[in-house]
C-alpha cells in the first residue's frame, strides 16, 4: 500500500497483496461453503428447519446482528475495535420505544435522533483514540460500562412501545421476502462498495494494515479512524432500531452480548483482528451461519445453558482457526498514536 522503494520490493509487495486477496477470497468462500453445507445438513436432519417460514425467520432474526457486524467489520479493518456496540444498541432500543411510545409520526424524528446520538458516540471514540492514544479496546470497554449505566439509570424495566411501522420493517415480509433481510442485503452491498471501490475504503485498509506507513504515505489516519468509529456506531443504532421493532418494547438488556457476536462474525468472515484485511461478503455469510446454528439449537430444544457453552466454544474455535501466522502478529503497531490533524 505504501509507496514502492524499489522494483523488486514492489514486486514482493504486490505478490503479498495478491496472496492476501486470494486468502481473503478463500476464507469468505469457505464461510459461505460452510453456510450452504450447514443449511443442507440442517434441512435433512432437523425437522421444521427447511420451511419457508423458518428460513425467513432465520434471515429476519439475523438482520440486526448483520448491521452491527457490518459496522464492526469497518473498525476492525481499520485496526481498531468497538466493544460498546451492544450497549449502544440497547440504549437505542430503550430510547426509541420510550420516546416514540408507539406513535408512528414520531418514528422518523426519533430514528434520526438516535442515529445522531450514535454519530456523537462514534466521534467521541475517534477523538479519544486520536488525541489521547487510548487503546481502543480499553476505551470502548469503558464506554460499554458508561452506556450500560446510562441505560439502567434511565430504566431497569421495559419501557414504551415501538411504532407499528418499525415493527413491520423488523418482522414482516414484502412479496414473500423479509423486509429486514432486504434491508441488510442493500446495506451490505453499500458497505462492500464503500470498502472496495472508494478511496475511503482503500485508505481504511491501509490504515489498519500499518497506521504509521499509511500516515507517511499521506493518508489522513485520524479522519479514517473517525469514519470507522462512526460507521460502527451507526451500525449499532440501525441494529437497535430493528431490535426495537422485533421486541416491540424498550427492553434495557436487549443489547447484551451483541459486541461479541459481531466481532466473531467479522473474524469468522475473514476480517483480521490485526487490521488491514476485511470481507463484507464473509461477514454476512458468518452472520447467517451463526443465525442457522442458533436456530437449529432452538429447534432441537437444546437448553439455554448448553447454547451458552456452545457459543463460547464457537468463539474460541473461530479465533484459533483464523489466527494469523506468527510473522503477521504485530501487537501494538495498529494503535500507534497519530499526530496528524
Amino acid at each position, binding site marked *: 500500500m505504501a509507496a514502492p522503494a524499489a522494483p523488486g520490493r514492489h514486486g514482493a509487495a504486490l505478490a503479498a497483496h495478491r496472496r492476501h486477496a486470494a486468502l481473503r477470497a478463500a476464507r469468505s468462500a469457505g464461510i459461505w461453503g460452510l453456510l450452504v453445507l450447514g443449511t443442507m445438513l440442517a434441512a435433512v436432519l432437523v425437522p421444521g428447519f427447511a420451511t419457508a417460514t423458518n428460513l425467513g425467520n432465520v434471515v429476519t432474526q439475523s438482520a440486526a446482528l448483520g448491521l452491527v457486524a457490518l459496522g464492526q467489520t469497518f473498525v476492525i479493518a481499520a485496526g481498531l475495535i468497538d466493544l460498546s456496540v451492544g450497549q449502544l444498541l440497547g440504549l437505542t432500543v430503550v430510547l426509541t420505544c420510550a420516546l416514540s411510545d408507539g406513535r408512528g409520526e414520531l418514528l422518523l424524528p426519533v430514528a434520526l435522533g438516535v442515529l445522531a446520538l450514535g454519530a456523537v458516540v462514534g466521534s467521541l471514540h475517534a477523538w479519544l483514540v486520536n488525541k489521547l492514544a487510548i*487503546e481502543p479496546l480499553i476505551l470502548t470497554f*469503558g464506554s*460499554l460500562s458508561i452506556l450500560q449505566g446510562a441505560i439502567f439509570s434511565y430504566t431497569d424495566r421495559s419501557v414504551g412501545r415501538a411504532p407499528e411501522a418499525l415493527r413491520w420493517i423488523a418482522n414482516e415480509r414484502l412479496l414473500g421476502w423479509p423486509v429486514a433481510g432486504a434491508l441488510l442485503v442493500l446495506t451490505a452491498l453499500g458497505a462492500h462498495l464503500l470498502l472496495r471501490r472508494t478511496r475511503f475504503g482503500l485508505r481504511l485498509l491501509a490504515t489498519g494494515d500499518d497506521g504509521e506507513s499509511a500516515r507517511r504515505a499521506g493518508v489522513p489516519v485520524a479522519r479514517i479512524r473517525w469514519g470507522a468509529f462512526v460507521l460502527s456506531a451507526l451500525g449499532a443504532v440501525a441494529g437497535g432500531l430493528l431490535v426495537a421493532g422485533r421486541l416491540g418494547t424498550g427492553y434495557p438488556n436487549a443489547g447484551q452480548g451483541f459486541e461479541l457476536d459481531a466481532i466473531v462474525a467479522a473474524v469468522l468472515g475473514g476480517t483480521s*483482528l490485526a487490521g488491514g484485511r476485511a470481507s463484507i461478503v464473509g461477514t454476512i455469510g458468518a452472520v447467517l451461519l451463526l443465525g442457522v446454528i442458533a436456530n437449529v439449537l432452538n429447534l432441537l430444544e437444546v437448553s439455554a445453558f448448553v447454547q451458552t457453552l456452545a457459543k463460547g466454544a464457537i468463539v474460541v474455535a473461530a479465533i484459533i482457526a483464523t489466527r494469523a501466522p506468527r510473522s503477521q502478529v504485530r501487537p501494538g503497531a495498529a494503535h500507534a*498514536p497519530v499526530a496528524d490533524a
Partner: protein
Amino acid sequence: MASRLATQALRELVSRWAILGALALLYLAAAILSPDAFLEPAYVGNVLRQAAPVAIAAIGTTLVMILGGVDLSIGAIISLSAVFCAVQMGGDAANVGPALAATLLLAAGLGAVNGMLNIASPGSSFILTLGSALAFYGLTQLYSGGTARGIVAPGFREFFNQRLGDVLPVLALAMLLIAAAMELVLRTTRFGRQIYLIGSNREAARLAGLPVGGVTFACYVISGLFAGLGGIAVLARSGVSSTFTGRGFEFDALAAIVLGGTVFSGGRGTIVGTVAGTLVLFIAFNLVNILGFNYNLQLVLKGAIIILASAAYAWLGRER
C-alpha cells in the same frame, strides 16, 4: 536537553506514584464528605473486606496484563468457583479443606485452558477469554441448574469475617498478605523478571531464549487460580453461591488494574498499584452510595474511571 530529561523523570515518577496519591486524596475527600464512616476504623475494615474478592482476583490478572495479555474470564471462574466450593462443602465443617483444594484445582485448570488457547493464538487474549468466559458461564449454569446451589460449612464464614483487634477482618488481612507475597514474587524471582521482559517485547524475549510459552501458560494458570481464591473470598463474604456471583467482576478488576498503572500493552505494572486501584474503586462506590446517588451510576463511574485513567497514563507515558 537536561530539562527534557528532568521532565521525563518527573513524569516517570508521577506515573509510578500517581495511584497512591489518588488513593490518599480520595480517602481525604471521603473523610471530609462522610466523617462518620471513613474515620471509623471498623468501616475502613469493611471497605477492605468488600474489596478483597476483586482485589485478589485482580492480583492474578495483573500478571497476565504485565505479560501483554488480558483475562476477561475471571468473572466466570469466580462464579463457578463459588458454586463449586459451596456444593463441595455441603454444609459440613469436615469438608472445608478438601472443598477449598478441589476448588483451587478446578480454577487453575480453567486458567490452564486459557493458557493453552493463548499460546495457540497469541495477541487475541481479549476475544479468546471473552469466549472462554461464555463457555465457563455455560458450565456454571449446567452445574448449578441455573439457581443458587450448595451450603457453606458452619464456621467458614465466621472465620474469615472475624475482626482482629475489632478492626481488620481476616479476609482483608488475607488479601493484604496475598498482595505482599505476589509483589515479592514479581520483584525478586526470575519468573517475575521474565514476565516483565516478555511483556516489554515478546519477540525479543523469544529470540533471547526465554521460555515464552511456559511463562504465558503459568500466568494464565495463576490468573485462574486467583479467580478461584476470589470466588472463595466472595463465598466467605456473602455466603451466596448463585450462578452469576462473579458477573461483572472482570470489569472491576480491569478498572482496578488499569488505575493501578499496569499498561494494556504490557511490560509495566505492580501489585501495589492494583490493590490501590481496587481501593480507589471501592471507596468511590461507597461514596456514591453514601451520597445517595443511583446505584447504576457506579457503572458510569467505573467506565469513566477506566477511560480517564488510561488517558492519564497514556499522557504521562508518551515521549518515552
